[in-house]
């Protein structure tokens, strides 16, 4: 039986057609023009992973109230407090949109600020990782901290 190229083309076309149809109507599809990471719930990372990203120069975001930030924060972190989000976000937006390695943290167990900040950034199309257990996990591990208003 000779090989028929038309059938090969038909198989390829059916694969594409089924894929597009399934993507459109199965409810499991993705937006073809958008980052598949976007719609997902935020990513949580443990302190050790956050430290690795810190060493690679990741941007850290402090979701705690500014008073906590000024007492002590992760060196280089920028304040993005959940209770004063909009004002700080405006200033940070260009930096946030130009990178993909931001990590947000808050006061620790039972603290929701980092999740709320991550969700708000997510609504604006910015994906950030959340430091699991937040600030205490960082300090308990003996990682560097910095006092004062300056990042």
């Amino acid at each position, binding site marked *: 039986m000779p090989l028929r190229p038309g059938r090969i083309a038909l*198989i390829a076309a059916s694969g*594409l057609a*089924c*894929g597009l149809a399934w993507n459109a109507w199965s409810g*499991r599809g*993705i937006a073809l023009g958008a980052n*598949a990471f976007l719609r997902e719930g935020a990513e949580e990372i443990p302190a050790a992973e956050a430290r690795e990203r810190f060493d690679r120069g990741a941007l850290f975001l402090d979701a705690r109230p500014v008073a906590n930030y000024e007492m002590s924060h992760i060196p280089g972190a920028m304040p993005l407090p959940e209770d004063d989000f909009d004002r700080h976000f405006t200033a940070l937006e260009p930096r946030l949109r130009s990178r993909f390695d931001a990590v947000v943290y808050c006061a620790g167990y039972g603290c929701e600020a980092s999740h709320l900040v991550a969700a708000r950034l997510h609504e604006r199309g910015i994906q950030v990782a959340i430091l699991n257990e937040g600030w205490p996990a960082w300090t308990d591990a003996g990682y560097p901290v910095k006092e004062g208003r300056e990042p």
Partner: protein
Amino acid sequence: MRLLRHPAAHWLLALVVGGIFVYASLSKIADPRAFAKIVYHYQVIGPSASLGFVPANLVAVALPWLELIAGVLLIAGLWRREAAVVTAVMLGVFVVAVASTLARGIDIQNCGCFALDASGRSAGWKLIAGDFALLAAALVVAFVPPRAPQAAADTSPVTAV
């Protein structure tokens, strides 16, 4: 070579390759988003500033269905040669993609072959070897013509070996 031309050998190879492709397609069809992220990791067709997200997402959406359709055809014995060609092309693409990640030092924890969660195998030389074995099987089905059924009936499988 005589063995490779045996119709039963063709049937068996098509069944194995087809079965693997059908099995491989299912988890990806069930979760296109997870598979898209794996496609991104390869950094072959984006996402990037020049390509955007569409090529990678399109592959994530269409490739699993192509695997399923080609696999089902191989198993069913319909359009078997053509399905084997499609399968061989896919395997060739997989080999190139994995080899390129090895060459560029990109560490792929999950190759996106079967399971899409943490249990998935990583992409490396073993995977390339496995792909080559499947590629060889697909090429036999596609391009080595089996003997006519009567000729096969004349020789028992034992003497055929």
